[in-house]
């Protein structure tokens, strides 16, 4: 008996490891995805260890070093690798601290949208009928607005600030998750194993969240990654418009907004560098999302 127990233990480990290995095999076929993952992990490390990596504080002003160019350009100074902005703050340090904001926004927005979307989507897909109609028409209404415009309106209602921006972006992204979950639940609901669980005595709640939901996760994970990057982008846009994180927060969009006056002048680094940071982050996460889709979607699998 002891021996069989050991056997069964190793067999599950092996199965999990095999699944992971298979996942990694398909994921690593996509070079871009691996590159994106590397950049993303680097970004997380930077965000976590920001106080130790950054050479200066994000809000420290150096009056003797206003609008210094990056070190590789004439006039740059060794202490300020990527130059300083209009009030003498080190841009590199602000970018490093800004990574914290961006990742935080991405995580919070995705979590709110994911949890809310899954909840509504599962209910709509499982019960159908008028519940489904009410939920889906509500989501259609949200989808009918241009997303940034709706986010702006919601921020105006909730009040400007990082929290308001995150909540409103999450609300705007909700319908995508609801639709995806509903479609997946409707497809799974008619399968025999669900009926079998019903005959075994499972109630609606157990059927919805324990039996059906785990089998619908693959498309949701992909959608979550993609909206992670979109959330960062939208939060930056809101920050640029002055409705997101408020100065002196070193959020990348807010940094862009502060630098608006330098867009046409010679101090290109004040504008370009936060923009580049946003671009690289979003690109990396999107690449990871594409790789995840290829690895998790059985229809795209080349066996």
């Amino acid at each position, binding site marked *: 008996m002891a021996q*069989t127990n050991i*056997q*069964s233990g190793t067999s*599950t480990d092996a199965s999990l490891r095999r699944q992971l290995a298979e996942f990694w095999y398909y994921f690593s076929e996509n070079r871009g995805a691996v590159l994106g993952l590397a950049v993303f992990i680097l970004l997380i490390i930077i965000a976590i260890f920001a106080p130790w990596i950054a050479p200066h504080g994000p809000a420290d002003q150096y009056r003797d070093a206003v609008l210094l160019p990056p070190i590789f350009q004439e006039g740059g100074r060794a202490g300020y690798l990527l130059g300083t902005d209009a009030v003498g703050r080190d841009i590199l340090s602000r970018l490093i601290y800004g990574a914290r904001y961006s990742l935080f926004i991405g995580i919070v927005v995705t979590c709110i949208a994911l949890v809310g979307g899954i909840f509504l989507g599962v209910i709509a897909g499982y019960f159908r009928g008028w519940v489904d109609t009410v939920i889906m028409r509500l989501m259609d209404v949200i989808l009918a607005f241009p997303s940034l415009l709706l986010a702006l309106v919601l921020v105006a209602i909730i009040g400007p600030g990082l929290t308001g921006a995150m909540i409103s972006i999450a609300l705007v992204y909700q319908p995508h998750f609801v639709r995806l979950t509903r479609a997946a639940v409707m497809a799974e609901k008619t399968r025999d194993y669900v009926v*079998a*669980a019903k*005959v*075994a*005595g499972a109630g609606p709640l157990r059927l919805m969240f324990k039996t059906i939901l785990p*089998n619908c996760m693959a498309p949701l994970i992909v959608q979550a990654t993609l909206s992670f990057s979109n959330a960062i982008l939208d939060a930056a846009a809101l920050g640029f418009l002055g409705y997101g994180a408020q100065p002196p927060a070193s959020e990348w969009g807010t940094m862009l907004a502060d630098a608006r006056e330098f867009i046409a002048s010679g101090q290109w680094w004040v504008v370009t560098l936060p923009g580049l940071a946003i671009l690289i982050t979003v690109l990396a996460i999107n690449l990871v999302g594409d790789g995840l889709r290829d690895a998790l979607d059985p229809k795209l699998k080349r066996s």
Partner: protein
Amino acid sequence: MSDIVLEGRNIVREYHVGGGLFGKAKTVQAVKGVNFTVEKGKTLAIVGESGCGKSTLGRILTLIDPQTSGELLIDGKPINIAKDKVTTEMRRKVQIIFQNPYGSLNPRQKIGEVLGEPLLLNTNKTAAERRELAMQMLVKVGLGPEHYNRYPHMFSGGQRQRIAIARALMLSPSLLVLDEPVSALDLSVQAQVLNLLADLQDEFNLTYVFISHDLSVVRYIADDVMVMYYGEVVEYGTRDEVFSNPQHSYTKTLFAATPKSDVESIRARIAKKKAAA
């Protein structure tokens, strides 16, 4: 006379179809007034072509779908799930086994959880007791305790069907509805699973409602046979009566359509071919 486990009186099931913008709503009768009784420990086989309502009837018997009208009695108690909630007591009496063993097991659930779930939901047994019972049941259906922690995708079709049978038996039901349990399996595995079912019937004194379109299987396992045709019962009697002396024309066609593989019939077929050539 032994006790009757299952009785159907005039069971009707209707589906409402259409009713769109331009189409008129139609009512389709999938099951039209079916009567039958099954005694304890016996097997009733329901035979018929695809779409004749036999699976619909099976779903009504398993308390998955409600009947539109008519009475369903399980252990002498009338039940109509359209009106009353299904009690755990009722749930424990009837279980079902599906045709496709690849779809009837949750791919994200370990075998141990699959078997433990009915106990978890319907009894107050502790985790250790559930584990012990599941292990015992695995051995009974011809698998081993080492399969407890595996996932469904690691099993073959025949093994999966054994797992499905084990799950259905966990609550020690008195009635088991088998919805074409062997038609998705290849022949040698079919025989194994049928033998297993016959053994389990003896061991637990189970009553089977066996839905099938395979007459050789029915001849092997059934005590009574009910032939359905477009929702109606066209023939109902003991196995020997139905097989030796079919009354309805559809039953006769059905028997004539069964391929025969004994030596005599093969010789006759060859002789016929030669005569024609």
